């Protein structure tokens, strides 16, 4: 019998007898069973908690931090918002403001925000997997998973899940939402916000029903090829049509055009157009005096746009429009396009002629220099019609014979939760939703040459803002408890009656907001009847002079007839009244000369109002608020008094601070301000 080998000896040692066999298997089982708990002992979160304890032990405020530290897996659980967040297991110091000087993650305290962390959890704003307890699972994702952590620069999108109103802390989101409306995204895409309201486009692209009256086939061709070559500030996207396509569409648009109400109704004028030299010399003055630049921009010699963005840019308008059309348009814009925002000014025929000649002189001969189109034919028109319906032109513009397409582009109401496996990424781009959305906005055709979405001319900042606004459209936002959703008011106020029709014609709400509906360029008129004195309003309508001389944009002159002025003034004085403006509000007898003297002292010394307002043009220079030199003619006593007491109550968001005047101070100041009247000719002072 030979000596047993090592293997045999080991075999015998471990499983030689039943007892040994039993012991061996038991030990093996015990080892296997202990693997799981041991792994748990070395888990990532324990490592971070150890590291944290080590870090705080060296600090001077260690006892306090140690007392507040809780070891083990931490969890924020909010069933009604479906939040199960274990982020605080590793991010242990979220509420420790004394660690603000630390940059070591995951131990930084959370920056100050208006919400409590335990009320909303983490994932609602930051995305990621709340229930995960490893770094990789919580923060990153593969295509098949849920969403990864939201990059910091898009974080404002999370505010937009509940807040539909404009917040002060989310400029990027606010800009993005404004762009969604302004660039007409919502014409093709349905974008329902979490409160159920659809984003409404505000750009109002012109109707093309009568386009042949306005411009030529050649201009349409040039415009379709590259809208920004004609007007740098245009929001019309570039569809990258080839020459043939652009010709076909231009042919179709001209062929479908019908005569407008204007061309049928307005009699041709006999005032001749002034010569180019006269137009250039006098036209600019008239253009300025009529305050066209309040709404329309032009490029100056250095290429900067000067003027407002309410109407189209006019830098090269002479290359576009037909002289007869300009005249008719200036006389009655709504006869050509009933939905235009341009008011109907009551220009004289001479003014119309001069302005027309001036505008025709603003042309760029290079724009259409190389455009020579073949004559239009039936086949080309038919191709053009097909292109127009294929590319959804009618989603934005009114076109005869083409109905606005329904559901033309994908619904974006839940784009922020689009599963990544449904997304076709481009080669080399990061496989995340923000990267996909911003890439698609930047260059849609890169995702496939057959895609119809055109290219918009946007800056990086605008693309990021749009991406932020779209990322707010998440599933979570839709299912958020309704009491958390903060809507912005959607007002549809339009003035009624005869005066209302006149105000519609003058398009007052293009610039002025009334009862929450209208533009933000000019003062809110909701309480105008309570604010001003009737005599002043009558005078102002006749000759609007601005209250704030520093502004470039000013109210244009409408050349209203005396009857129209009276009708408008009466309507505004009656309809636009604030509550609580009766004779009880202020005892006018208290506004005597003594009170005015005390008020003057308060105005100049205690409250230094002259730092923002001008009460006396000779010595005051304040340029922030409106000039008050003739406020005694302009504003009503009760308005001044109530305004001084609490400006924000009358005009939410005004820059005028509430100085908490006492009753007496407000009365005295009102008395002083009412003495500030324009000097009348011949009136004894």
């Amino acid at each position, binding site marked *: 019998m030979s000596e047993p080998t090592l293997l045999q000896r080991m075999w015998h040692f471990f499983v030689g007898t039943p007892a040994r066999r039993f012991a061996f298997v038991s030990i093996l089982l015990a080892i296997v069973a202990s693997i799981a708990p041991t792994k748990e002992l070395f888990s990532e979160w324990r490592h971070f908690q150890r590291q944290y304890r080590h870090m705080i032990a060296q600090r001077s405020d260690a006892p306090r931090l140690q007392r507040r530290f809780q070891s083990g897996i931490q969890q924020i659980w909010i069933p009604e918002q479906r939040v199960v967040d274990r982020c605080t297991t590793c991010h242990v110091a979220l509420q420790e403001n004394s660690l603000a000087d630390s940059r070591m993650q995951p131990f930084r305290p959370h920056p*100050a925000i208006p919400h409590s962390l335990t009320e909303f959890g983490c994932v609602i704003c930051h995305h990621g997997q709340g229930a995960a307890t490893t770094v990789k699972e919580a923060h990153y994702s593969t295509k098949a998973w849920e969403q990864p952590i939201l*990059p910091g*620069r*898009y974080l404002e999108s999370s505010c937009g899940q509940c807040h539909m109103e404009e917040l002060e802390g989310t400029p990027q989101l606010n800009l993005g939402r404004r762009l969604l409306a302004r660039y007409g995204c919502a014409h093709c895409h349905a974008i329902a916000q979490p409160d159920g309201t659809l984003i409404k486009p505000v750009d109002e692209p012109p109707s093309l029903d009568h386009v042949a009256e306005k411009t030529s086939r050649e201009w349409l061709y040039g415009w379709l090829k590259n809208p920004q070559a004609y007007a740098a500030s245009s929001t019309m996207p570039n569809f990258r049509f080839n020459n043939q396509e652009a010709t076909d569409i231009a042919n179709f648009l001209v062929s479908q055009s019908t005569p407008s109400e204007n061309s049928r109704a307005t009699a041709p004028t006999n005032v001749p157009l002034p010569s180019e030299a006269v137009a250039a010399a006098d036209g600019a003055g008239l253009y300025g005096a009529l305050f066209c630049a309040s709404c329309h921009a032009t490029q100056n010699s250095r290429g900067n746009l000067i003027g407002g963005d309410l109407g189209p840019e006019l830098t090269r308008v002479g290359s576009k429009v037909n002289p007869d059309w300009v005249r008719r348009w200036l006389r009655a814009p709504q006869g050509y396009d009933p939905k235009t925002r341009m008011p109907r000014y009551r220009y004289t025929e001479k003014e119309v002629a001069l302005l027309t000649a001036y505008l025709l002189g603003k042309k760029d001969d290079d724009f259409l220099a190389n455009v020579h189109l073949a004559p239009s034919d039936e086949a080309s028109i038919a191709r053009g019609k097909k292109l127009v319906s294929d590319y959804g032109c009618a989603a934005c513009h009114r076109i005869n014979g083409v109905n606005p397409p329904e559901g033309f582009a994908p619904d974006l109401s839940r784009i922020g939760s689009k599963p990544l496996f449904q997304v076709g990424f481009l080669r080399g781009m990061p496989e995340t939703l923000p990267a996909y959305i911003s890439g698609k906005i930047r260059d849609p055709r890169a995702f496939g040459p057959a895609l119809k979405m055109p290219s918009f001319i946007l800056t990086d900042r605008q693309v990021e803002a749009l991406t932020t606004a779209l990322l707010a459209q998440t599933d979570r936002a839709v299912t958020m408890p309704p009491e958390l959703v903060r809507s912005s008011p959607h007002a549809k106020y339009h003035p009624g009656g005869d005066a209302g029709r006149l105000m519609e014609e003058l398009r007052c709400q293009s610039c002025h907001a009334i009862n929450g509906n209208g533009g933000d360029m000019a003062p809110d008129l909701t309480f105008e009847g309570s604010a001003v004195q009737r005599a002043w309003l009558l005078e102002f309508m006749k000759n609007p002079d601005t209250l704030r001389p520093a502004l470039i944009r000013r109210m244009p002159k409408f050349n209203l007839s005396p009857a129209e002025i009276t009708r408008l003034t009466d309507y505004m004085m009656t309809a636009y009244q604030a509550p609580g403006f009766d004779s009880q509000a202020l005892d006018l007898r208290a506004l005597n000369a003594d009170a005015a003297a005390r008020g003057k002292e308060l105005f100049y010394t205690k409250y230094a109002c002259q*730092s923002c307002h001008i009460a006396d043009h000779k010595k005051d220079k304040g340029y922030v608020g409106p000039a008050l030199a003739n406020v005694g003619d302009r504003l009503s006593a009760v308005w001044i008094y109530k305004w001084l007491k609490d400006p924000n109550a009358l005009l939410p968001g005004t820059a005028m601070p509430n100085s908490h005047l006492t009753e007496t101070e407000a009365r005295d100041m009102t008395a002083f301000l009412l003495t500030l009247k324009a000097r009348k000719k011949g009136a004894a002072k």
Partner: protein
Amino acid sequence: MKSTFSTCVLASLLLSGCAKQANVPPPLAPKAYGTQIVEQSGGKQAAGVGAKLKDPVVVQVNGADGNAVAGALVSFHGDGLSFTPSQALTDDSGQVSTVAQLGTIPGSYVIVAETSKSGGGIFSLNLREIALGYQEKVGKQISDKYCIMCHDPESTPERVSNFDNLAPPPSHLFSDGSVLNAMSDADLIKIIADGGPALGKSPQTPAYRGTLTPGEIKAVVAYIRAIADPPYPHSPGPITDHRGCRYWNATMEDEPNWLSGALLVPREGACSLAHAGEPIEAIAKHFGGSVQLCRWRIYQAGTHHQLPRAPCAVFARGAFGL
């Protein structure tokens, strides 16, 4: 067989290594060298966390004669920052421009722009940029609406500055750390909430207590602290090393803790009184501090250790009630 397999594995590993290498741009070779790197524009910008800075950062490399050097290599780096491009050769005017993207933590970031010396080594330039968190962003919005028309002398087409119309003119810009860093948070809050007269200054600064909420006023202060130049010393800025880990300077941290007690109860005083056998209450009364403070101070000064060893230690430790 085995060797073939391992060769395959080795080859594929090598290949994958090479493939990875190919994604990193090769370092540029400088064509010229300068002796100085200076900022042209782009420093001291403020933007939201994680955002790209609005204006590009432009630096210029100059030679010994003070003229711009074309073709010098400039590289950018900085903790938490990313750059497009991160390195480039200077153009004909000796300049390099890059777009910087801030990190996700609010606070100051330092851009380090470097150009190599001809004989090895580098010249470097530090630029400070500011990342605004949520609170600072709110502060900026409020400041833009209510404050800067008087506190910023620059006019824009949309906003005419009121700075020059004021008598006396505002003493500082919001970013002027040399004035504002010396003011406490409480004073700043007070002057915003209650106006200039609250601190004995001109009433031209109106009171915003009725207009802004306390949170909004705090946000404005946070914004002022964030954009302060020179930086606000106690701002939540980084004290980190190159790995992003925090430096721990116990001396610096403990200084204020120690100083307060040390000023109130100087070591010599504590010793002499302890020698005289005074009870702790009497010592506290003498120095005008609390019993706890004096006890801690005597511990810290080491008096309770030294006294038993001292020749004139005539009293027991119990005298302190320690």
